């Protein structure tokens, strides 16, 4: 019971912090936010010259946002690890 209470407090605190951070986010689709116009234009204009790949999507996910993709593969790794731990094959 005490354990559940601690978990509940942690969840509420984390949700509160995330919601506070969300208030700071720019308005969705607003044209005056740099992340929603300048960055995309820059990727399209200089992407091929800066990464050398003609597939812009690959450029962005493996070059500009490489950290993000690295963590994404780590998520896959963690998922398989969890499944292996719970359902270990003989």
């Amino acid at each position, binding site marked *: 019971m005490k354990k559940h209470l601690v978990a509940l407090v942690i969840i509420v605190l984390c949700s509160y912090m995330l919601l506070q951070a969300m208030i700071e986010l720019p308005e969705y689709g607003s044209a005056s936010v740099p992340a929603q116009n300048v960055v995309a234009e820059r990727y399209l204009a200089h992407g091929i010259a800066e990464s*050398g*790949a003609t*597939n812009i999507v690959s*450029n962005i996910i493996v070059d500009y946002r490489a950290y993000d993709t690295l963590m994404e593969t780590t998520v896959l790794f963690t998922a398989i690890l969890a499944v292996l731990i719970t359902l270990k094959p003989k």
Partner: protein
Amino acid sequence: MVVPFIQLYGLYIVTHGHLSPGGGFAGGTVLGVSMILYTLVYGLDQSLKKVSHRVSTTLESFGAMWYAAIGLVGVLRGANFLMNRGAGVPLGQPGQLFSSGLVAVITLGVGLKVASTVLSLFEILIEEAE
């Protein structure tokens, strides 16, 4: 019968990930699905003879480590982690197979990893069901 063609197509998507639509995630899924089809047709025992759990978990770890190791290329050349052109990696002619520096190399690792993830998830889960 159709499995090698699916694998060829998956391999094509992975190796041309930097040229045409596709990439490591899409191509890796196609590669993994080809072995899932093999499992569905010939059964789990036959499939485990082709790709054992040991092989798929090794590929799994290899894919993740490959990505991080390629990221270190940038560090070794005196630039930031996972940097491509900034680290002085030759980019080649855009549009050719051997171009785009580290993008193509990383895509290969991601493809292997996603293929083994899809396959081992499926095999472990149906093993549990049997």
